[in-house]
Structure formats: structure tokens, C-alpha cells
């Protein structure tokens, strides 16, 4: 009985969510926004590439495919994007790099949200000392130049994917905390929050059922926009040699290797990882922009055909 009960309730709330989404004006607006479609298509392309990387990439990432100099061959023939100075297939490496980029982006956003959102909710809802404490921590986090702090952290604890993500989240959570707090501050003044108190809801329930669901829209936007920023930051760190190490095919790290070669006329080892970064960042940014406009009722109003 109780299991059935639970299933029914969960089913109701999930289907309810989608029904609400389908009926919401945000969705109608989003459907009409070409940025959303371009962004969505690019994101699908990137995510699809990451998932099926093993099937798409014709060669292994570390296969030395060229036996004799020059190892770096221009695009064409068997190697559609050419080979790098170690004779490895650039196309395969760029494709496999998608995985790393998304992994960094998603893990980082998740970590930042997990730290930032609850802190922001508590600061905004309870106010007073809790707020003071969280906001001072936010100030501190935001006053550090993120990239330098991350570089220092990696210098201290060593490089690698995990350390890279932790290092970037040291400052990144603050944005989530601040936006969430601002949301909580305005939402808690709404009569429906007071009426929840008036029927005897506990603070915990008020935060989870009344404040968070109503403040989620900007958080989704922030998450969508943080993801490309994280990929860019990670690329920068990788470019400086502080992140993921060779021979892992991170796009930023690939650029580092290609830096000196451009002058020798070997442009393809630098161009294609760069293009991959641009496509990914652009896709998420388009989607994020469109979401922001769609979820902001003030921008949506009077948008008739």
C-alpha cells in the first residue's frame, strides 16, 4: 500500500511538473526563440558527441599514427583534421576532449550549486547572523581573483581533474549563494510564504516547498551560463599547464601544445580545439540567454505574434 502510495505521489508530481511546463508561458516563448533552438541544437551536438565519442573518434587518443617526419600533417585524407606534432589524430582528440570539457563543466556547476544554494537559502530566509556569516564568506570568495586562487590551489595540491574542479569551486559557489539569497529574500516576503507560516508549516518545509521551487528559474539560468564559463576557465588553466595533464586530450591543453607550432604554419592543431571550445560555449550561452528571457516575465510580456 505504502509503496503504491509513494509511486502514485511521485508520478503525480513529475507529470504535474511537465504539464505545468507545457502550459507555462515561458515554454510558449521559448519555442519561438531562435536562439533557444540554435543553442539547443549545439548543446545536443556537444552532449551527443561526448556520449558517443568512442564510436565517432576513428583512432585512439594516444595512437602515434605517423611513423616519419613531419609528424604534423595538414587536414585531408585519412585524417580529416590533420595530425599533431606527435602524429596523433586531431579529430579523435578533439572529439574525446568534449567528454572532458563537459565533465569539468557539469561537475563544477553541480559542486558550486550544492554548496551555494543551501547557504543562500538559509542566509536569505533566516537573515540576521546566518545571513551576515554567509555573506561575508561570499564577499571573501568574490574578492579573490578566481583564476589565481585556483592556480595557487593546484600549485599546492597538485594538478589533475579533481583538483581542478575543487580549485574552481572555491570561488564559484559564491555566485550561486548570492543569487539564491536574493531570491529567498524577495520570495519570503510573498504572502504565500506568510500564509504557509499561518497554516503551521515548519521552516524547513517552507524553504524546500515554497521558496526553492519559486526561486529556481534564475538558478537554472545561472547554471546554464556557469557551465560554459567553467569550460573556458578550465581551458585557461589547462592552457597554463595547471589542469589536466598530457596526454589527456583537454582542449585547453591541446592549445598549449599547438602554441609554438602556429608560427611554423601548423595552424590546424590550434584551430580545431579552439573551434570546439567556441561551439560548446556558444551553445550553452545561447540556451542560457534564451532561458533567461523566457523565465523573466517582464521580458516576456506583450510578445504577441
Amino acid at each position, binding site marked *: 500500500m505504502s509503496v503504491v502510495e509513494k509511486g502514485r505521489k511521485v508520478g503525480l508530481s513529475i507529470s504535474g511538473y511537465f504539464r505545468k511546463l507545457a502550459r507555462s508561458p515561458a515554454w510558449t516563448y521559448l519555442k519561438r526563440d531562435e536562439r533557444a533552438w540554435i543553442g539547443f541544437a549545439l548543446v545536443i551536438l556537444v552532449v551527443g558527441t561526448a556520449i558517443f565519442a568512442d564510436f565517432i573518434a576513428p583512432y585512439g587518443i594516444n595512437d602515434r599514427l605517423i611513423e616519419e617526419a613531419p609528424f604534423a600533417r595538414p587536414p585531408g585524407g585519412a585524417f580529416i583534421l590533420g595530425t599533431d606534432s606527435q602524429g596523433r589524430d586531431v579529430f579523435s582528440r578533439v572529439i574525446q576532449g568534449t567528454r572532458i570539457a563537459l565533465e569539468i563543466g557539469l561537475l563544477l556547476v553541480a559542486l558550486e550549486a550544492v554548496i551555494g544554494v543551501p547557504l543562500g537559502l538559509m542566509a536569505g530566509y533566516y537573515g540576521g547572523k546566518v545571513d551576515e556569516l554567509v555573506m561575508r564568506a561570499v564577499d571573501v570568495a568574490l574578492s579573490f581573483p578566481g583564476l589565481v586562487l585556483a592556480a595557487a590551489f593546484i600549485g599546492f595540491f597538485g594538478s589533475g581533474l579533481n583538483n581542478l574542479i575543487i580549485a574552481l569551486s572555491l570561488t564559484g559557489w559564491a555566485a550561486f549563494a548570492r543569487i539564491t539569497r536574493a531570491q529567498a529574500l524577495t520570495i519570503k516576503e510573498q*504572502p504565500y510564504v506568510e500564509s504557509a507560516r*499561518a497554516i503551521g508549516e*515548519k521552516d524547513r518545509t517552507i524553504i524546500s516547498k515554497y521558496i526553492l521551487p519559486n526561486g529556481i528559474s534564475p538558478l537554472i539560468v545561472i547554471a546554464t551560463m556557469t557551465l560554459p564559463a567553467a569550460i573556458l576557465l578550465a581551458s585557461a588553466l589547462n592552457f597554463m599547464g595547471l589542469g589536466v595533464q598530457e596526454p589527456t586530450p583537454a582542449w585547453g591543453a591541446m592549445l598549449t601544445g599547438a602554441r609554438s607550432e602556429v608560427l611554423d604554419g601548423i595552424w590546424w592543431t590550434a584551430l580545431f580545439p579552439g573551434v570546439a571550445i567556441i561551439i560548446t560555449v556558444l551553445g550553452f550561452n545561447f540556451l542560457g540567454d534564451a532561458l533567461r528571457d523566457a523565465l523573466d516575465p517582464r521580458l516576456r510580456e506583450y510578445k504577441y505574434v
Partner: protein
Amino acid sequence: MGKAEGQVLVKAENLKRYFRVEAGLFSRGKARWVHAVDGVNLHIRKKEIFGLVGESGCGKTTVGKLFLGLERPTSGSVYFDGVDISKLSREELRKLRREMGIVYQHPQSSLNPRMLIEETLRRPIEIHKLAKNEQEKKRMILDVLDEVGIERYLLERYPHELSGGQQQRIAIARILLLNPKFIVLDEPTSALDVLVQAHVLNILSNLHEKFGFSYLFISHDLDVVEHISDRMAVMYVGKIVELARKKDLRRRAMHPYTRSLLAAVPIPDPRKKMKKREILRGEVPSAISPPRGCRFHPRCPHAMDICRKKEPKFKDVGGGHYVACYLFKSSR
């Protein structure tokens, strides 16, 4: 008249609530205070509808929130069924919440926009564990829907898909589930059109008749308050200036403010245009630095010397009629 002088359910004693106004960034310490509620005494009896009228910013909404413990008084006490709720802990107060309820002015913002109507109505039952099983929950919800005349298919909707009148009836239904003793109605019909207002007022009256709730009906609309209340009070800048049975308040209005309020209300009868009636000059003073003495004296056509110096007492002039004005003598 010894008519239905029932037991007192809620009582406010010298109730005060001041709000701090944040002074500017560089003038900390010089905080100023809004005297939102400044010494209110009143009681509401069991099964009574008590009306509170006043213009915006007079503190009437704060009185309602103080009565429910949604605001804590700066000083003074609120007794609910004999218990001083201003001394209760947050958790004790939370448990007391099933005895009382509140309906707000803007129905669309008093319902959680991300909750289906069904869940909105389910919450009070779940918080206070009012039902033994799922079937009982369902039955309770369907019962209150019938009470307020809402059709069942609306349970699967979100608040924004309902009209204002429907939203307000859902807000009322949610309170009915708790079967409370006392309900604060804070401008419940002010945002509604006249036909919807009539409908909601009828529902509220019928529920009162049927379940015997006590209401505190707060509104700026004298006609609406007079229509629904048993007794009513007029508030001006944080204080009650006059309190009477509803028939007496219009017929035997005493306080100059009450009288000018009555004169200002447009009457839906074109043969009684207000041309000849006196129009009150000036504006409501700031509650940050209310006038000394009687708060109404700067606008009062009958102001005397004493009005500017000393605050008039709230006195009984007989027949349950109270007024705070020097023009009238206490009956005792």
C-alpha cells in the same frame, strides 16, 4: 442590550508594534521607528465578526498579524483563548496555528504558484495530521470544495490558471480544513470586482453562520465592513479612535475622523451627491513622527488647545460605544 455578549476569544492589551526604519548608510544609530500599532486595546468574542476600518498605513494589517502571532508585539499582549501568544515559542505557536487562519487581499500571491491546488489543500491536513488515511484526506478536501463552491477538476490546476474569485475561495477552503476558531480577513475582497466581491462576502457570511468562526474583518471599505460586521472599530495612525456596534457607528458617529470618513465614502445613490458634505483636508500624517496630543488634531475641524497637548483617552460613552475624543464625556 444583553445580546449575545459571548465569551472573549481574542484580546489585545495595550498592543504596540514599532518597525525600525533603516537609517542611511552613514547615519547608523539614529534609527527611527514607525509606530505602526501604538497602544491598541480590543477584544473579539466567540462567533463575532469584528470589523476594523482605516486608510492605508493606519496599522490595521499589522493588528491582524499581531493577533495571529505572525508579528511579535514590541510591547503589550495578545491573548488567544486565555493564552498569551506573545510569550509562546516559535514551535508552540506553530502548533496553535490550526486554531486560526488568515485570508489576504491578493489571492494570486497568497497561494504557492508552484503547487497544484490539490497539494495546497493537502498541506494543512498533513501538517497537523488531521486525517487517518488517504481516503479521509480526499474526503476532507472534497468537502471543503463543496463548502466554497469550487468544482473538483480545479484540483489539478495551478493557482495562475484560476480566476481571482476562485483563488480567494481556495484560500478560504485551505483555512476551513483546519476548522479554526478565529480567522483574520485582511481586505479579502478589495482586489475583486463587485460581483465577485458579493459572492465571496456571501460565502464568508454563510460559513460564519454554519461553523461559528470569529472573524477579524479588516478593510478600507466602510460599506463592506459595515455589511458584514457585528461590531466595528475605526483606526487612525496606529490607534483606535472609535469602536461601536455597527448600527451605532454610522448613525451615532462621534469622532470627527469617523464622521469625515463616512462623509468621504461615495454613496451609490445619485440623489445623494457629496457636494454639500464636508471634505476632509490634508493627508494622513507619517507614523514615524505622529502629531503630539490627538493624532487627528491637524486635520480636525473641531481641534481645541487641549487636543494639541494631551492625548485623549479611549472612553466608554455608553452602550458599548467607545471614542477617543475630548468632545465627548465618559458615561461613567
